[in-house]
């Protein structure tokens, strides 16, 4: 068990936080993400549970996280990286984790992040005819949007 944790600790340019025995956070630079994911996959982290984004609007960054799991060691490794909010571009991980392909489609639609190497990104996925800013961004106000685009019912009477 300790062997793999030590190997993770030796990953190049990574900041390791061991939150608990079976959950390790690995923070890396944007350029190193793909390499780190590849090394982790070689170590036995075969399953990409979820890849998604946290909009850190105060820092002007998007935090992209990959939750990985190893059937062998029963450990979750969460790889995190940050990209600029103004020009968010990441490299695709779908060559390493095929399931990343769809997660990337989702984040590119919901956050407007450009994913290089994933040809499906940019095509409409969940939304249809979306014209506003990507909805999952923190500066998108859902309540405002709904009150502008839809009409709420105000029932006055007591008809029961």
């Amino acid at each position: 068990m300790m062997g793999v944790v030590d190997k993770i600790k030796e990953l190049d340019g990574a900041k390791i936080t061991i939150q608990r025995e079976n959950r390790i956070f690995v923070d890396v630079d944007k350029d190193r993400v793909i390499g780190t994911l590849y090394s982790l996959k070689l170590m036995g982290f075969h399953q990409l549970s979820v890849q998604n984004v946290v909009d850190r609007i105060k820092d002007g960054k998007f935090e992209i996280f990959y939750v990985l799991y190893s059937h062998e060691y029963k450990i979750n490794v969460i790889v995190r990286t940050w990209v600029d909010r103004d020009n968010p571009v990441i490299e695709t991980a779908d060559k390493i984790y095929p399931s990343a392909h769809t997660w990337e489609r989702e984040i590119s639609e919901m956050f407007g992040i450009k994913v290089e190497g994933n040809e499906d990104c940019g095509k409409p996925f969940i939304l249809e005819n979306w014209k506003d800013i990507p909805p999952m961004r923190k500066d998108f106000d859902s309540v405002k949007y709904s009150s502008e685009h839809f009409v709420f019912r105000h029932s006055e009477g007591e008809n029961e």
Partner: protein
Amino acid sequence: MNIKEYEKGSFLKPLASVKYLFKKPHTVRYPQEEKPVADRYRGLHINDLDKCIGCGNCRDICPCAAISMEDPSNVRPIDINKKGANPVRPKVDYGRCSFCALCVEMCPTGSLKMSKDLIYTSPDADAFAWIPREEQGREPGFVQDNEITPLMLEAEEMEELEPDVRKKSFEEMILGFSEEQARREAMRCLGCGICMQGCPAHMKIPEYIQAIFDGDNEKSVKYMLEDNVLPGICGRICTHRCQDDCVYQYRGDPIHIMWLKRFATDQLEDYKSVNIEKMPSTGKRVAVIGGGPSGLSAAYHLTTMGHSVTIYEQRSRAGGALATGIPLYRLPIYELDKEIGNIESMGVEIKLNTKIGEDVKFEDLLNEYDAVYLAIGLSYGRSINLKGEEHPNVVQAIDFLRQVKIEGRRDITKHVIVIGGGNVAMDVARTVARLQEINYGSKDTTVETVSLEDWDIMPASQEEIDGALEEGVIFNPAWGPNQVILDENGNIKGLEVKKVKHVFDENHRFNPAFYEDQKKIIYGDYIVESVGQMYNFSFIPEEMLNKLEFTPRRKVWVDEYGETSIPGVFAGGDIVETSRGDAISAIANGHRAAIGIDRYLHGKK
């Protein structure tokens, strides 16, 4: 599981189902037959409109914004004058409701429930919102539970000194919240603001509690000072009517609003950074007669409005009853100095030891100043014309307390009798208990109270009674004083008392009656009378006094801005207040008068 068997498979196996041809189907033939609905079913709401207080917690917790608070008068009238309640009731939009029942969990009164009924169809889309009420005849289903609830029903325990420790000195007995306790207590607040109605000063309670929760004590005190210039003092001695209205009373302990106030002010060395901003000077001058809470409150607010204010105080210390009456163990001197000092730092001039009518003429004040605020309070003890009360060892409570608090009196006799059952009588009795402990170590000493009222109607607050009992005070409830008994040397031997038949007559008026045959003697050598106080208007010239109007209850009549029947003369504090006559009411009508005086000075009237 034996996988092999499944792998084999068979054509004939399905024939086993033939047996169901002869079985009764399990179909529920709704609507001919109905399946019983679970006891906890979460269906359409039920609300007991009389029990509901319209606090709006259901609206705040609703994840779907389905609840709005509306006036129910056109569907069913409610008592709009209900104490501690808003005259609105929840209206539920079933085009929103997700039937999560969080509103039921959060309802502080328990009036809101969910019913077992969730079958409702209508072709009219507007017919899905109504004010739920019991009259709709639905059977209750999901109700709240006091064991498992998102509300924090239990209050933080306040630490206080043990009775045998606190008796040894006049040290403050309530120790105050620690930072952690205060935040936990502040966290309990739901922010509904029902308590604001109970507070005479209508302080912004939810806001300042939120600020305490956020850890921003300065902001919290800033909110307090807007309506209450003596927050630290009120945090110690307030009658906390806000807590009586707190919505937690229905299911748990009310929030200790008063002690939270005390916590926040204690964290601040002074209020320099949080005082209300002063407006530019207007050049107008106002005289305030009486340096009690009402006078201080008016003076502070008038100063912030740009007027220059002078307070005339007859004693050597400003603060009125706060300075002279309330014992040290409840309100230490440093707290008075801090808050009165703050008012002085705003530019209020306080002339101590100046008695109106003797040192300064009232008429002169009227000529010299643009307006006068009368806040003289009830500073004279009321006697009950007891036979033998002219004896020097029969004293008035207000004098006794003053001597102990600001004149440094520490002597006491061994056996003391206190007449009265109010909070002042408790202050006296507990002060005596301390003095006896200091002088004699409580060896063969007694302190006994005599009150007309029995336990159930005793005017003193329960915490005071409990505190006094803990400190060894003996109570004689439902006994009325008859006469002072002297021994052969002319010293007091005791007090003869007779049993009370009733205190109030059938019209609920104060009219005590006694059993003349049931008498006993309470032994003691020193008697303190604590049966109430009165005002003294002897400083006002006769012809002016005649112009001053009084209410039927012998209080000074004032209009909604605190102005008396004499133009330019405003009044407030205990001489006006018809309710309990506590510090917070005095502070409140001091603020009210300040606004009135400001209007008067700007000629808006």
